[in-house]
């Protein structure tokens, strides 16, 4: 394991792109001590008892919002939740005004999900608070990538040298981009697989392999990270039908058993059962989907704890 730093090099968590390899190792190591904490009878530590965190969600979320909220509460922070759909955003308030109004109530950190790429970066330049990106459009979702890396290293001991295939709607996926950056910084090999229309043109410049045949991708990899087709972001048709997609790119038990090795199946959720993955695979022993969810809380605790340490 590489030498870890004593503190993060950044004030905000806007994307994996801004983190150094040392930062990532520090987060993953801290997360493993938090995983011990959340498996104790008393799952709470007082580290952030003087910090107030606002979860600002301009887009729907189940896992990420609950996971952040739980992580914040396990660290004893005060938490407020804000969902754009039930707020004055619909009355025409701008992003900076909305956030500055929240900050006027003495909030220290903002966890934000927003449909526009770069919303977190924009906000970090204009308001006086620490920003954690919980997903910005099709750009980045850094905590998801960190928890995926944590889950892989939990399975295999290390991420370096592992072969990870990211399969599905790469074009609209923030999870894919953050995962590619994070896994590469940790020394893993990454392959993306999907229909030509859902693989962005520039992706080869990141140094990933590209494959359009699901079976070849699965034969190559140690870990398959299955992504959802993001119909809500698709304004045109990228493939003829969902049925055809699931026949060509859906992972089912028959394909999995035809491989001559055991691979680990991951999925960031939400799952569309029967589309990108069948129920018998999602619920099989190959799948670590629910471990990912549990690790999400520990990893987010580590991120919040380490960023809070950057406040004086």
């Amino acid at each position, binding site marked *: 394991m590489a030498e870890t730093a004593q503190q993060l090099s950044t004030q905000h968590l806007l994307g994996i792109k801004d983190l150094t390899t040392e930062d990532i190792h520090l987060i993953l190591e801290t997360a493993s001590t938090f995983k011990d904490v959340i498996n104790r009878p008393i799952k709470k530590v007082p580290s952030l008892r003087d910090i107030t965190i606002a979860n600002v969600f301009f887009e729907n979320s189940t896992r990420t919002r609950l996971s952040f909220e739980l992580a914040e509460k396990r660290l004893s922070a005060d938490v407020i939740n804000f969902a754009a759909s039930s707020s004055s955003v619909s009355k025409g308030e701008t992003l900076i005004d909305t956030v500055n109004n929240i900050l006027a109530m003495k909030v220290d950190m903002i966890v934000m999900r927003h449909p526009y790429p770069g919303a977190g970066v924009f906000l970090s330049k204009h308001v006086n608070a620490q920003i954690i990106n919980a997903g910005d459009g099709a750009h980045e979702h850094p905590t998801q990538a960190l928890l995926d890396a944590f889950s892989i290293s939990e399975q295999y001991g290390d991420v370096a040298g592992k072969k990870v295939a990211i399969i599905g709607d790469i074009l609209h996926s923030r999870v894919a981009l953050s995962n590619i950056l994070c896994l590469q910084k940790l020394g893993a090999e990454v392959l993306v697989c999907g229909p030509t229309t859902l693989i962005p043109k520039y992706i080869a410049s990141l140094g990933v392999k590209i494959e359009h045949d699901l079976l070849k991708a699965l034969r190559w990899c140690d870990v398959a990270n299955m992504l959802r087709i993001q119909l809500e972001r698709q304004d045109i048709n990228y493939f003829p039908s969902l049925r055809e997609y699931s026949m060509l790119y859906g992972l089912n038990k028959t394909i999995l058993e035809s491989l001559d090795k055991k691979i680990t199946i991951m999925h960031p959720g939400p799952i569309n059962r029967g589309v990108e993955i069948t129920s018998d695979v999602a619920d099989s022993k190959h799948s670590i989907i629910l471990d990912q969810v549990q690790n999400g809380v520990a990893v987010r605790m580590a991120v919040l704890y380490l960023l*809070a340490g950057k406040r004086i």
Partner: protein
Amino acid sequence: MQQSILLSGPKFQITIQRLCQQLIENHHDFKNSVIIGIQPRGIYLAKRIREELQRTLKVDDILFGELDITFYRDDFRRKENGPLVPNSTNINFVIENKKVILIDDVLWTGRTIRSSLDAIQAFGRPEKVELLVLVDRRFSRHLPIQPDYIGIQVDSINSQRVIVNWHETDTQDQIILLTEEND
């Protein structure tokens, strides 16, 4: 940096043995007592005490744990070098209704012990908590905390440092007092 040795050699060993005898007076066979070393430096003393106790009592089952207090500190975010990277906590038993002996190498301001008392609650409600330290830097407490078992007492000023070395990790067993040259 000036160094003076406060304790070493046979006297060091006798001090550990005396602490063990005092523990045996109060805890008898240790059936309902547990030893908890505080990370990072308290665990060496705690391990040594347990070894000595097990040898004396001819048992091999004294419960032993390591406690990390990083997340419970009151100086988190008040240190210039950022948050302290945690050590591991290894306590594989509940301390409900047990007599807990907390062990650290040096007692100075008492803040680490305050944090430990917070941290230990995550493992149950002990019947009683006692504190054993090898070095008590007296008259320097920030909190009303006093040890139950003391190796040696030292009068020191704030700029001085007291370091305990162990032959397991350092060259030999000794307690040293470091003084800045210009003091």
